[in-house]
């Protein structure tokens, strides 16, 4: 019996690209590097218009701790630094580089001699991760060096890798686990050393038996354990994953570190390996290009700064007009206004869904059927949160219905027969809550 959690849903898996090995795609003429590919402070460009840049060179950075350096992912010439479309923030300051197609590495990269990671101290590992601009690659893009810097008074016992890939359509982590299991395991060992974790667990949904086998083989002799998980969304959400694989719960309002756990995506572990062993910063990743409107769905290696439009072109373009363009999976991904947005570090999937796939319908009154209550992995009452959201009553939602515990996984919306946009109401209320807190702070000053 595979491990699981209470609640959750099982949308059609749609893993149509699961059997397709990753492909390299052509380099576009121009790259668009947002100065903010992470959660935290934006970077400032360290290059100016007219500069020549090499692959792997830092082009934007900041002193702020919660941030991540931006590196050029190919060689070329900076032609502009201006505001440009961003897949998460709408617009963002962007360094635009015209590729010279030589794709030349910065001198000294990759390292001629692999680094001996076992000789490195935890602080040195964290410094390398920070310099390489590594962020959580599952989609949240939280800077990894912040996670591996364990705050005083806390200790990390469990190091958990997330290979669940519970989002429909996405197969990029699956292909990574099949293609580079050694990198993932070594990246995990490096991470465990950085935080002093003693137990290593990797959670993978049971619909990927080949990935489970590949990682189990690579993990032989390391003490790292593979935990097969029931196929259910949101098996890979941080809090549910922790509950399932360690048996611990993150306290309400707390962080995984409060439960002595650190969770990282498998792709992040592989990136840590590349940075520490070969000195390669985070400039490319696996991504799934899929959805009913894509002519040739595939798994590809994408580089930061590539436009979605270029990537769709490399996958044969569209068979019909897409209704929604997504960064990430269909359950938690972000809908895009245009296909001319650049790849950022958390781009695990690029989807073009048809109208039939999105199944949009008008919202109706809640009939209190309770399906959302059964689906909620956090044990909330989503129907009431949506009604309070309609009224804008975020106070009651926060104080009596645990608004702030909602992880916005979307399970409630998926099952709702009245088609209520519960997650949107929750976000609205969280926003109103922050607004009020800000106003209160300003009033005190």
């Amino acid at each position, binding site marked *: 019996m595979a491990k699981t959690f209470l609640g959750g849903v099982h*949308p059609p898996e749609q893993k149509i690209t699961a059997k397709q090995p990753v492909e390299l795609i052509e380099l576009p003429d121009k790259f668009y590097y947002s100065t903010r590919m992470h959660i935290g402070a934006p970077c400032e460009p360290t290059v100016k218009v007219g500069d020549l840049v090499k692959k792997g060179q830092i082009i934007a950075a900041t002193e702020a701790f919660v941030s991540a350096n931006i590196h050029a992912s190919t060689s070329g010439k900076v032609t502009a630094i201006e505001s440009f479309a961003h897949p998460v923030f709408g617009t963002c300051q962007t360094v635009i580089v015209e590729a010279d197609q030589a794709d030349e590495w910065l001198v000294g990269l990759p390292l001629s001699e692999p680094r001996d990671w076992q000789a490195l101290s935890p602080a040195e590992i964290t410094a390398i991760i920070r310099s390489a601009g590594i962020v959580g690659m599952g989609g949240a893009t939280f800077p990894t060096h912040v996670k591996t810097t364990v705050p005083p008074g806390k200790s990390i016992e469990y190091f958990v890798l997330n290979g669940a890939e519970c989002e429909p359509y996405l197969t990029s982590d699956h292909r990574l686990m099949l293609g580079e299991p050694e990198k993932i395991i070594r990246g995990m060992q490096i991470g465990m050393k950085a935080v002093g974790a003693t137990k290593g667990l990797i959670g993978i949904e049971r619909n990927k038996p080949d990935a489970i086998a590949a990682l189990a083989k690579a993990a032989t002799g390391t003490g790292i354990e593979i935990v097969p998980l029931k196929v259910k969304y949101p098996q890979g959400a941080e809090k549910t994953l922790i509950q399932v694989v360690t048996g611990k719960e993150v306290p309400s309002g707390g962080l995984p570190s409060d439960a002595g756990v650190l969770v990282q995506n498998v792709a992040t572990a592989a990136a840590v390996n590349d940075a520490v062993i070969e000195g390669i910063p985070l400039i490319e990743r696996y991504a799934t290009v899929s959805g009913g409107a894509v002519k040739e769905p595939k798994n590809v290696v994408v580089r930061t700064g590539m436009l979605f439009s270029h990537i769709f072109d490399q996958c044969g373009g569209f068979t019909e007009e897409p209704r929604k363009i997504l960064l990430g999976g269909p359950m938690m991904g972000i809908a895009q206004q245009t296909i001319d947005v650049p790849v950022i570090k958390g781009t695990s999937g690029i989807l073009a869904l048809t109208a039939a796939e999105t199944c949009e319908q008008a919202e109706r009154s809640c*009939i209190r059927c*309770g399906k959302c209550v059964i689906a909620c992995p956090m044990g909330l009452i989503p129907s009431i949160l949506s009604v309070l959201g309609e009224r804008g009553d975020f106070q009651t939602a926060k104080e009596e219905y645990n608004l702030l515990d909602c992880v916005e996984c979307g399970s409630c*919306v998926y099952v709702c027969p009245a088609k209520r946009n519960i997650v*949107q109401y929750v976000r609205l209320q969280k926003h109103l809550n922050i607004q009020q807190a800000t106003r209160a702070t300003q009033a005190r000053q």
Partner: protein
Amino acid sequence: MSEPKTLFNISASPHVRDSLTVKRIMWEVNLALAPATLFSCWWFGFAAIKTYLICIFACVLTEWIIQKARGVAITVDDGSAFLTGLLLAMNIPPEIPWYMPVVGSIAAIGIAKHTMGGLGHNIFNPALIGRAFLLASWPIAMTTWSEMSSVVDGVTRATPLGILKLHGYDQVVSTFGNTATMYKDLFFGFRNGSMGETSVLLLLLGGLFLIWRGHINWQVPTVMIATVGVVTWIFGGTAGLFSGDWLFHILSGGLFLGAFFMATDMVTIPITVRGQMVFAFGCGLIVALIRLKGGYPEGVCYSILLMNACAPLIDRVIRPKKYGAGGK
């Protein structure tokens, strides 16, 4: 750079949804009631068909008029007003004068449903409010049952629970001939009563269909019926405790109709499964109390209405188990 030809939808996540709709749930509940409905049309004859049509038509029309008058979206196609009409008809005697079901339908849809704000906002089950309204307004007509042949008297106008209340248990058995025939007739529905409540077998089939489709859970009907069974077994007999005929009690009256189709009305019951079990237990307790100690022979309607009133309170007390609550 290629510009999109059409605008993309940028609505919030999730971007895929299950295809189940409120409309489909409602029509499937109507479908689940079809076998019992058809049986009653055959068993009670033309009067039943007429009363069904009046109730359904009056409910749907009332909803249409109110929504038209309020200037809100017309949602009569969602099957919920149709369902209210069907359930109301199933809860009244077949040979009732035509204008009474019309008034009951107006009370059900107009008062119980739309004064509260329409579908999803009502506190009480509309069909049961309609029935209670009629019982208060025309008590005689609402308890005048069809003429049926009986083993003893040749003809009877009473329901088994009515005979029990007035003449005692032995009289009930002798009406059917013997206990085996009694259980059999009650189970298949060959007895007097409200139109849709008689056939336990067909109501059970419909209920199992709804459980299989995931529209109701098994806990509510099970707890409600079991509670009635246990309480009537303990306190329902004349030969001291534990001598009651629990099987007679669970097979008679509107218990199966109520337990599978009205105590499971998602709008008017608690939202958590644990809360629903408390609700169902309360319903069963009140049914048994009314039948054994009350003035009425039957109490399913009032038990559910009373517990409907308690549902918000139950929801306030019984919450889902929250993730992370066990932490510091």
